[in-house]
């Protein structure tokens, strides 16, 4: 009996104890878990590449961030079929506009990746130089994402961490706070990226460098209205000797890493850029150069090549590779620095010189005593289809004058800002009541 009881005890215990916690802990294969996404140098590099990859999205430099400022303004007209783009063309964007919602979403995904790098990089074993570099790149990315959002929406929620509970109820910052945050990130990035060399010429343009940070700082200060600081940064970039204007204007674009380019988004046949598909007749042809733009091109201007005619239709020609998508989207280039320095030095000879540097590259005659309008005109043509026009009009308070002529029936002063996507307001209680005026 005793031995039987022993057997029973043994069996019972055997049955009872095997409620094993370890047995039901399984790790997935081939899924990078949140815990392991940044665990060493290789994975940290992979995460930063993921951040850059996010810029390639069709809601960013793969299309909309370069096209929307054109459609909203007098640079592009809607020649396609999407009603959401038609809304932009008529400056009648509604809060449920799906494209606007996706632009917002795509940027915040990129910010999330940048914040993941910034939070985790301190926890791994990593070469200190590489660490500074990756931090600098993440800060640059975070700043650029927020900047692109601010230019469309005004003050936006500033995402500084990855904590879900914080982010799901985050409030909007003011425009000033947003700019301060962006500037702070870029200043840090410039410091951390000082002297960083990514390797090849192309690599140094596809990834953030301290010059990219400074060039962006020039633009940010310009948009903020701080012309002096903007001019200082532009000057520093021009005088660095790292970049030179392309002799042939159209050589800047396409699949190269032009000498003029400071920061551009990578593309290849394996990793195609969809932008061309939206501009070209053999693609969607969703937008076309406006008559105002065509009329603004001066006779003899080499830059008339930015538009061409395909199958009898006028199309933008900066992104042309529909089949294999190898056009690289330019974010920052030297020509813009000249024009920023010119604007910063309005009234001085420097302004004339800088404008004329750009004009002579375009095989146009010189101008003297350049005015703000001259600079805006130059920017209109020089930086066409690169996502500048709307922002230039808005920051110089010329947007109402221009757009009330283009869209007399639908233009209203509230159209200066895009609506915060309705979906965001619905899901985030902190945004309720903070929609942009007029929506």
């Amino acid at each position, binding site marked *: 009996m005793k031995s039987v009881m022993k057997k029973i005890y043994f069996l019972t215990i055997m049955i009872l104890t*095997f409620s094993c916690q370890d047995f039901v802990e399984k790790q997935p294969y081939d899924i990078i878990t949140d815990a392991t996404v940044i665990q060493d140098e290789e994975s940290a590099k992979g995460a930063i590449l993921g951040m850059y990859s996010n810029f390639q999205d069709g809601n960013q430099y793969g299309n909309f961030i370069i096209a929307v400022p054109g459609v909203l303004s007098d640079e592009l007209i809607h020649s396609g079929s999407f009603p959401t783009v038609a809304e932009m063309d008529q400056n009648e964007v509604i809060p449920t506009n799906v494209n606007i919602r996706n632009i917002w979403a795509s940027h915040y995904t990129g910010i999330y990746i940048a914040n993941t790098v910034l939070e985790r990089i301190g926890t791994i074993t990593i070469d200190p130089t590489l660490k500074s570099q990756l931090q600098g790149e993440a800060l640059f990315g975070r700043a650029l994402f927020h900047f692109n959002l601010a230019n469309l929406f005004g003050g936006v929620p500033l995402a500084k961490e990855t904590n879900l509970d914080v982010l799901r109820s985050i409030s909007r910052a003011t425009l000033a706070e947003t700019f301060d945050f962006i500037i702070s990130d870029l200043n840090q990035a410039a410091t951390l990226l000082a002297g960083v060399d990514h390797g090849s010429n192309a690599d140094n343009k596809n990834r953030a460098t301290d010059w990219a940070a400074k060039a962006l700082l020039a633009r940010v200060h310009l948009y903020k209205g701080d012309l002096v600081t903007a001019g200082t940064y532009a000057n520093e970039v021009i005088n660095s000797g790292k970049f030179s204007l392309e002799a042939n204007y159209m050589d800047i674009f396409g699949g190269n890493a032009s000498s003029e380019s400071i920061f551009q988004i990578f593309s290849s046949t394996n990793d195609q850029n969809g932008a061309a598909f939206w501009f070209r007749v053999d693609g969607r042809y969703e937008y076309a150069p406006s008559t105002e733009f065509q009329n603004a091109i001066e006779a003899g201007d080499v830059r008339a090549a930015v538009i061409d005619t395909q199958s009898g239709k006028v199309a933008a020609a900066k992104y042309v590779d529909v089949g294999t998508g190898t056009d690289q989207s330019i974010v920052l280039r030297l020509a813009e620095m000249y024009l920023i320095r010119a604007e910063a030095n309005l009234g001085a000879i420097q302004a004339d010189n800088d404008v004329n540097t750009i004009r002579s590259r375009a095989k146009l005659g010189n101008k003297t005593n350049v005015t703000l309008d001259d600079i805006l005109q130059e920017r209109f043509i020089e930086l066409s289809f690169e996502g500048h026009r709307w922002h230039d009009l808005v920051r110089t308070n010329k947007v109402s004058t221009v757009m009330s002529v283009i869209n007399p029936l639908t233009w209203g002063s509230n159209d200066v800002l895009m609506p915060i996507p309705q979906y*965001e307001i619905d899901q985030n209680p902190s945004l309720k009541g903070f929609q942009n005026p007029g929506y």
Partner: protein
Amino acid sequence: MRQTLLLCMTFFLFATITVAQERSVTGTVTSAEDGTTLPGVSVLEKGTSNGTVTDVNGQYKITVTGDNSVLLFTFVGMATQEVSVGSRSSININLETDITQLSEVVVIGYGTVLKKELTGSVASVSADEIGKLPVLSVNQALQGQAAGVFVTANSGTPGGGISVRVRGQTSINASNDPLYIVDGVPVEAGNLVQQGFGGEQQNALAGLNPQDIESIQVLKDASTMAIYGARAANGVVLITTKTGKSGESRINFNTWTGWANETGRVEMVGSQDWIDLQNEARANDGLTAKTNADWGWDGTTNTNWMDEIFRTARISEHNLSASGGSENTTYYVSGAYRDEEGVIIGSGLERFSGRINLQTKASEKLSFGTRIGISNDKNSRIMNDNNIYGVYSASVLTPSIKPVYDENGNYVDALPSFNTNPVRSALVPRYDISTLKVITNLNVNYNIFEGLDFRSDFSYDLTEVSEDLYAPKSTSRGRGSDGLGQFNYIRRGTYAIEPTLRYTKTINNSHKINAILGSTFQERSTISSRVEGSGYGRESLTYITSAATITSGSSNRTDYSFNSFFGRVNYSMDEKYNLSASLRRDGSSRFGSGNKFGTFYALGASWIFSDESFMSGIDFIDLGKLRVSYGVTGNDQIGDFTYIGSWTGSANYQDLPASAPNNIENPNLKWEETSALDIGLELSLFQKVDFELGYFYQNTTDLLYGRPLPRTTGFAIVQENLGNIENKGLEINIRSVNVESNDFLWKTNFNIAFTKNKVLSLIDVNDEPLPQGFASAIIIGEPLNTFYGLKFMGVDPTTGESIFEDYNGDGSSTTDDNQVIGDHNPDFYGGFTNTFSYKGLSLDVFFQFVQGVDVYNYSQGFAMFPGSPWGLNTSLLDRWQNPGDITDIPKLSTVRGLNGADNSRFLEDGSYVRLKNIKLSYEFPQDLISKAKIKNLTVYALGSNILTFTKYTGADPEISSLANTSTAKGTDFLSFPQAKMYSIGLNIGL
């Protein structure tokens, strides 16, 4: 003197009587059903404890005391017989099957229980009932057989997916399939085919031959299900395969062959009508008519595509089995082959299956057994459903103006835009799916001491699917890539070890305790791969070894593990009061770290009120039972790693691999939970009728759903447990023997369930309808599978325009007027079987019915718009043409307008009554065949699905293109209909 004589005589008499009292009685006990001897029958002298058991030859010997003794013969599943011994010394008994099932044993989780002592709701289907149906798989055999179990076929594809729902749908994103256990082995129920075939999918149980099944029990309420814990919320289907019986061996051979055609089809117009309708639409819109040449018609071609693709299919099946055993070992061995052509050309299925079940008693205390079932089936599939490369779909879409072949005998690209040819799509590509299925179980039973047994089950379920797919460049699917070849492979194996301790004790003959304690270790591993190649030099090169470019390839692996501890106690007092309690603690690798283990429990009670003294006068009630149960079960089919925060490694930049965020973590992610209440009344009356009435209420909470997040978080949704669905209903089950005379028997089996489903809550933002599928939506307060669209009010006789209800009252009809227009939930459903037998002849008639489902006939809807180049439906011939016409078909136009929006014009009543099975069989009399040493010879003729009564105008009211969703069922979008079959067969038993 007289007194003494009297005393002596009395004494002498007494002595004689005393001597005469001790008598030996012998005899043989046989089964009345098939004449086999029955070992193990209990023979008891009534009123005493004197008893014995029949031996391996069915023979017994018992010593009785007196001529007035009565012998009781009892055996499981047989009606107890009482015989007065009288003066006989040899009594042979023929035991009848217990019609009223009072002593029926019911298989429940981890054991069996007497039906009398059951506190829960279990639906049983027996081998007889399954054996009569010529179905491919066991889940088809459940249709219409069990109250509360709603079975629908997704389409008529041989081996295609079958949907089984026990007491309604509980989930939106997790699986709604019940847990299938075959001989204690948890068996894969999902679709493993990687290439999409629309809603048709694959039936994971097709590998299990229904002829090998002894019984199916569907556990429906908490007290029976909760012992399966986190896998049980959708019900548990327990399948037990056949075992041998000690005694003489039985060999059985069954063969049948049949002819099948489709149950219905969509009627399309002929060429002249097509041209006329198209031109009329143009005329109505002010456009000029196009000539025959413009339309691409040669003036004579009139291809009936339906005729081209449908055929009379041949189906046949052969089953051979042998069973028997000695005192200690029993065996059941079987082998079967089934060859099933599909009713559409180019489709068909071939299955080989075999089984060996062995059980042996190694010693007094130790017994063990093994069950191994293996099957291999090859399914030649065709593309279908919502797919332009489909055969049936293209046949609806292709107008009759194009021929099948051109003058050179080559296939014509008949369907405009997509360039498909339905006949070529059926015959030329190769889509062969081979499935190997192995279900095996080893059980070891050790009797520790009286009443206490240790039993352990070791089981393994393996499914291996290889998909060999090739579309040559002559087909439209293969054209763009110069021939498209794919090879997909998946191997899923689950092993489980379940040690248990089982204890049975009867105290004082009135308190019966049955307890079990056990644990489960289960691990599942899935490994899969796919490779695709393009660029084939010639049509005869069809494998990827010949492809010029490997366009993509990948492989992957996921694992899942499951661990539990459980216990159950069944207590029965005086065979009148029964209580059961079960508890189970489940841990699953699918649950987040915050909720790794869940606890599930149930309590049940039943009362045999017919045994109470106050019922003693009421004789016609043989058994009356009231039962109630309440418990909590879970559903862990939520995706293997949904709780993990994850990134993908598939982003890239500078042609280097990069990581991007994928899924936000939810460490608290857990199972969906269902609490269920069951109340029932069971009556057995007049020794002829079994009646069961049950009510259930189930509340499912913690539904897995993606809660939308603001994008500032970096993510769109977080998978959470939110959401609440309710299911309730009434089930009625009646079995009766209506007439039982000398040679004539008439039995009826009727089941019906009334069910209601309602989504109580989901995400609390706005309560807006969440669109699903084509015209379905999830709406709070409505059932799942609700249809949402415009309400069609008819055609204006003056203008011929459609009128839609202005639901929001804004003065105009737009898509803002969408409202609830119907749903695909039955008001009631069930089955009705009648069996008549007269001498050797027997007729079995089985009707299955469903009432109250709406079906969105999108197949027809798609073919009602001239202006597109597709085929047109014959219903258009009744269109409105002149003012004053009263019709439901609006004026023809090339512009769809609101007619093309989701609206109730295409929503039809899908209720039906179907003659599912009718079987006429003749069993040759024993005396005739026993000379040839044959024990059983039966011939039969069978018709299945031969009559369908329905108002539905589409091909088949049962099918569903989006059957793999829980929210958009009942949408018929080019799904192909089921088959009706006539067959003849023969059964020989040796």
